[in-house]
C-alpha cells in the first residue's frame, strides 16, 4: 500500500500541490437482521478504495478512486492537485498545513476475529436474542434484532512524512421490539457497541439484550406522554452523554473557528460552566467504540480535556485547524470511509463524575423528572440551539421516582445549559452511538454520571 500512496502523493506534489495525503481503505462488514424470527436483512459489503487530498495556499481538493493501481493513483493524485491549483486564486485565507509526523504499523488484536466466526453462528446469535424478546411476554407484538460487524484496514500517508497502518474492529448488537396492549403500542431500542472482536458478544449485556429490551418496552406500555413545562431534570449517564455531545462537543469542533460557526468562538480559556464541571473526549480508552490509535490524517490520538473545572480548555483538531489556529493537533480528524475527507469529530465524550450519590440526587430533587436513554438529538452550533429526546423517564415528586413517561424532548441553548448543571453524581457509564456530521457517520460513545440540570424546558403533548 505504501507504493500506491507514494505514487499518488508524488504525482500531486509534482503537479504543484504543497501538501497531499492519502487514505487507502479495505473494510468488510456483515449485517444480520431478524424480525419476528424471519431473516430480513443478511448483508455483506466490501469497501475498497482510496481518498486523496491535495492542498496549496489555503485551497483544498479531494477525490476518491477505486482504481488501486500505481497508474490509477498517479492519475487521481495529479487531477486532485490540479483541482486545488484551480481553486487557489479564489481563496481568501492563505495558510499552510503543518504538523507532527508518525510512522507506525498498528495491528489491533482481538480474541475472536469476525472472519473466524461462521455466518451460521452469527445468525444463531441474532435468532437467540430475537427469540428472547418474542418469548418475553405475550404483549410483544413484533421484534427486530440486528447484528453488525465492521473490520477496517486503513493506510494513511501524507507528504509531511506520515505513514501509518491501522486496524479497527467494531461489532454492534441491537434489539428493538414493539409491544401492544389493546390500542396502546410502544417501541424501544437497546444496543451494545464496544470495540473488539466477536468476543464482545459473549458479555452478559449482549447475551441478554433481547430480554432487557423486551422488559423496557413492556414497562413503556404503562408510560404516559410528559406534560410540557420547565423542570429540574436528572439525566441518567446515557442521556447526560447525549447532552454533553450535542450541547457542547459539536460546538468544540475546531473547524467551527475558521468558519465562525460556533457560539463558543470567543470562549476559549474562559468559563463556560460551574467549577465542578469537566468534559473529556478520550479516543485512547481501551475497548471503546469511539477509540482509535491514529486519526484519519495519521495523527496519534490523545485524551482531550475540553472543559476543565468550568473553563473551556481544548478543541477537537484536524491538521488544518491546528495549523490555522496555531494549536497542538490532537488527532480528532475522522472520515466515514475513504469516500470522504476527514473532519474534526468526537470520539468517546463524557462529563467527568463528581461526588453526589445517585439516590441522594433523586431524593434531593423535589419536583422534577428523571430522564433516561435517548432517541436522538441534534444541534446548530452557529446559533447555539440544541435539542435531544430521552427515550423514557420518571416523574420525581418529593424526591421519589413516580409515573413513567416516554419520548421526552428537551431544548436549550449551548451557552446557557452548562451553567444550569447544579449537581453531578459519582457513577459512570458510556453508551454506543453513531454521530453524523456533513453527511458522514462515525462510531462514537457518550456518557458520564447522573447529573441534574435545573429549570429547563421539556416538551409535552
Amino acid at each position: 500500500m505504501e507504493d500506491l500512496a507514494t505514487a499518488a502523493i508524488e504525482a500531486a506534489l509534482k503537479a504543484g500541490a504543497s501538501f497531499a495525503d492519502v487514505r487507502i481503505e479495505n473494510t468488510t462488514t456483515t449485517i444480520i437482521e431478524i424480525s419476528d424470527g424471519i431473516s430480513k436483512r443478511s448483508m455483506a459489503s466490501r469497501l475498497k478504495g482510496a481518498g486523496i487530498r491535495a492542498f496549496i495556499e489555503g485551497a483544498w481538493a479531494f477525490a476518491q478512486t477505486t482504481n488501486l493501481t500505481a497508474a490509477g493513483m498517479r492519475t487521481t493524485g495529479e487531477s486532485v492537485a490540479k483541482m486545488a491549483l484551480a481553486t487557489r486564486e479564489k481563496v481568501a485565507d492563505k495558510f499552510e498545513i503543518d504538523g507532527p509526523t508518525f510512522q507506525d504499523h498498528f495491528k489491533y488484536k482481538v480474541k475472536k476475529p469476525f472472519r473466524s466466526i461462521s455466518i451460521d453462528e452469527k445468525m444463531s446469535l441474532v435468532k437467540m436474542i430475537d427469540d428472547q424478546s418474542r418469548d418475553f411476554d405475550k404483549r410483544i407484538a413484533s421484534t427486530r434484532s440486528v447484528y453488525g460487524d465492521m473490520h477496517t484496514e486503513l493506510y494513511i500517508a501524507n507528504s509531511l512524512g506520515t505513514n501509518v497502518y491501522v486496524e479497527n474492529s467494531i461489532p454492534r448488537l441491537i434489539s428493538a421490539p414493539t409491544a401492544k396492549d389493546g390500542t396502546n403500542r410502544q417501541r424501544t431500542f437497546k444496543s451494545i457497541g464496544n470495540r473488539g472482536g466477536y468476543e464482545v458478544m459473549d458479555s452478559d449485556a449482549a447475551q441478554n439484550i433481547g430480554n432487557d429490551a423486551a422488559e423496557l418496552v413492556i414497562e413503556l406500555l404503562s408510560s404516559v406522554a410528559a406534560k410540557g413545562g420547565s423542570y429540574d431534570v436528572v439525566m441518567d449517564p446515557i442521556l447526560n452523554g447525549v447532552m454533553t455531545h450535542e450541547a457542547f462537543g459539536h460546538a468544540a469542533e475546531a473547524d467551527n473557528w475558521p468558519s465562525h460557526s460556533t457560539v463558543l468562538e470567543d470562549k476559549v480559556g474562559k468559563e463556560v460552566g460551574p467549577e465542578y464541571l469537566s468534559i473529556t473526549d478520550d479516543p485512547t480508552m481501551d475497548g471503546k467504540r469511539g477509540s482509535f490509535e491514529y486519526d484519519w490524517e495519521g495523527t496519534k490520538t490523545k485524551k482531550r480535556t475540553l472543559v476543565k473545572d468550568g473553563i473551556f480548555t481544548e478543541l477537537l483538531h484536524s491538521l488544518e485547524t491546528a495549523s490555522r489556529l496555531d494549536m497542538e493537533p490532537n488527532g480528532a480528524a475522522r472520515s466515514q470511509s475513504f469516500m470522504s475527507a476527514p473532519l474534526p469529530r468526537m470520539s468517546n465524550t463524557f462529563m467527568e463524575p463528581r461526588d453526589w450519590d445517585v439516590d441522594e440526587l433523586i431524593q434531593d430533587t423535589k419536583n422534577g423528572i428523571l430522564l433516561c436513554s435517548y432517541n436522538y438529538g441534534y444541534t446548530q452550533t452557529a446559533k447555539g440551539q440544541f435539542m435531544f429526546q430521552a427515550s423514557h423517564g420518571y416523574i420525581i415528586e418529593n424526591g421519589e421516582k413516580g409515573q413513567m413517561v416516554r419520548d421526552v424532548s428537551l431544548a436549550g441553548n449551548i451557552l446557557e445549559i452548562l451553567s444550569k448543571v447544579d449537581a453531578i453524581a459519582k457513577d459512570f457509564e458510556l453508551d454506543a452511538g453513531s454521530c453524523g456530521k456533513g453527511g458522514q457517520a462515525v462510531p462514537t460513545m457518550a456518557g458520564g454520571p447522573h447529573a441534574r440540570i435545573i429549570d429547563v424546558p421539556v416538551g409535552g403533548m
Partner: protein
Amino acid sequence: MNEILLDIGTKAIKLAEKMGADQAEVYVAKSRAYEIEAENNAIKGASEQIDAGIGIRTVIGKKIGFAYVTTQDTSDIEEAITDSLNLAKASFEDPDFVTLPSSVGSYQKAKGIFNKEVDELSSDEAAILLIRTIDATKEKLEGKDYAIESAIHSSSSSSAIVNSLGIEMTESKTSISLYSYPVIKEGEDQTASYEYQISRNLNDINPEHIGMKAAELALGFLRPKIIESGEMPVIFAPLGASAVLGRGFAGAVNAEEVQMGRSYITDAFGESIASETLEIIDDGTIPGGLGTRTFDAEGYRTQRTPIIESGVLKNLLHNSYTSNKDRVDNTGNAARPSYSGLPSISTSNFIVTPGKGNLDDFIAEMDKGVVCRNTGDRPNMITGELSAMILEGYYVENGEIQHPLKNTLIGINMKDLLKRVSQVGSDSRTTFSMITPSFVIESANITSG
C-alpha cells in the same frame, strides 16, 4: 455508459444463477459528484467523487442474501456473489417472500430528469454560481458582522437494474443543489439561517434568490425570545411542513412499517385520518421532479398514487415484497441507497396539493400563534407523538411577527396534527423530501422556557 452497466448486470445475474441462486437481482451504478465549498465568505475547496459499485441480491427458495462492493472488478463481483449466496443459505426463510418483481405493464418514460447543462457543468461555471450566491448574501448583510458558508453540489449518475425475471432497466439522472448559510453576530447575540434550492435542472437554480433570502432570514432571527407556554395555532412554512409530513407522515404510510405494526396509522387504513383540506399524493411521473423516475429501485414501473383524498387514507407505499405479502398492486416505491443496500420503501415525489394563500397571508390572519419555519425532529412513528423543537420560527400576535423564538417546542400527536390542518397554501416549494406549501394547524401544545 448505460450499456456497460447493463452488460455488467446481465453477466452477474448469469453467474449468480450458475452458482446456485434461484433468482438474482443486480443493481449497478456509476456516479460523478462535484462540489465546491466556501467558508467565511470565500471559496475553500473542491471535491470530485467518482463512485461505481454493484449490489447483488440472491434468492434461494424463500431465503435472501445481499452483498455489495465499491468496485466493478470481475473478481470483486464474484466475491460479492459468493457472499450474497452464503448469506442467503444461512438465512431463516421468509414465508411472505413470493418473488422478485417481473416487468408488467407499460413504463412511462420519465421526463426532465437528465439535464445536459448539469452533466457538463464546468468547475469554473460552478464557482461562478457559488460566488454569485455569496455576493448576494453579502449585499444584504452590508455593515453587519457575518461569516457565510456556502456550497454548490452537482451530480450525474447512471444506474442499471437487472434480474432473473427479465427486468433490464437503465436510467441516467442529474441533480444540482446550492445553499447559503450566513452566521451573523451582533453584540452578544449570534444567529444563523439558510436558504437552498435543489433541482434536476440548472435553469431552476437562482443564486441571487438563495443568497438574498438566506441573509433576510438570518437577520430576522436575531434577538430570539421565549414565550408563555400554552395551546395555540401553528403555521408550518414549507420546510417545516416538509419535515413534519415528509419524514413524519411519509414514514407512516410505508407498507413495510404498517405490516410490522410500527406505524401510528396501522389501524387506520381506508378511514378518515386527516382534515378534508389536506390532500397528499405520491407521484413519480411529474416532469423534472427530484423523485421522478421511469422505474423504482427494483426496476418496477413508477406511478401516481393518491395517499390522502378528502381526508381519507387511500393507499400505502409498496415495493414488491410488501405488495406480494398484502396481495395488492405494487406502487413502485422501492428505494435503496444506490448499490449499497437492499430495497426498502420511500416516496417518489411526495406532494401536498396546493390550496389558497401563502405564509404571509397566514401570518396576517393569525391572532396569536407561532410559525415553524423548520424543525429537525421526527415523531415517534408507533404512537405518532411529535415533540418538535422550532429550530427556526417566530411568535405572531395580531397578524404580525413579534419576534423570533428560542428554546420552544411543539407537542402534538401526528394523528391530531393531520386532523387539525385548517388551511393549505399555494406557496409550494421543492425540498429534499417533498413538494409542499405552507399549512396551518388549529392548535398544538407549545412549551417555551
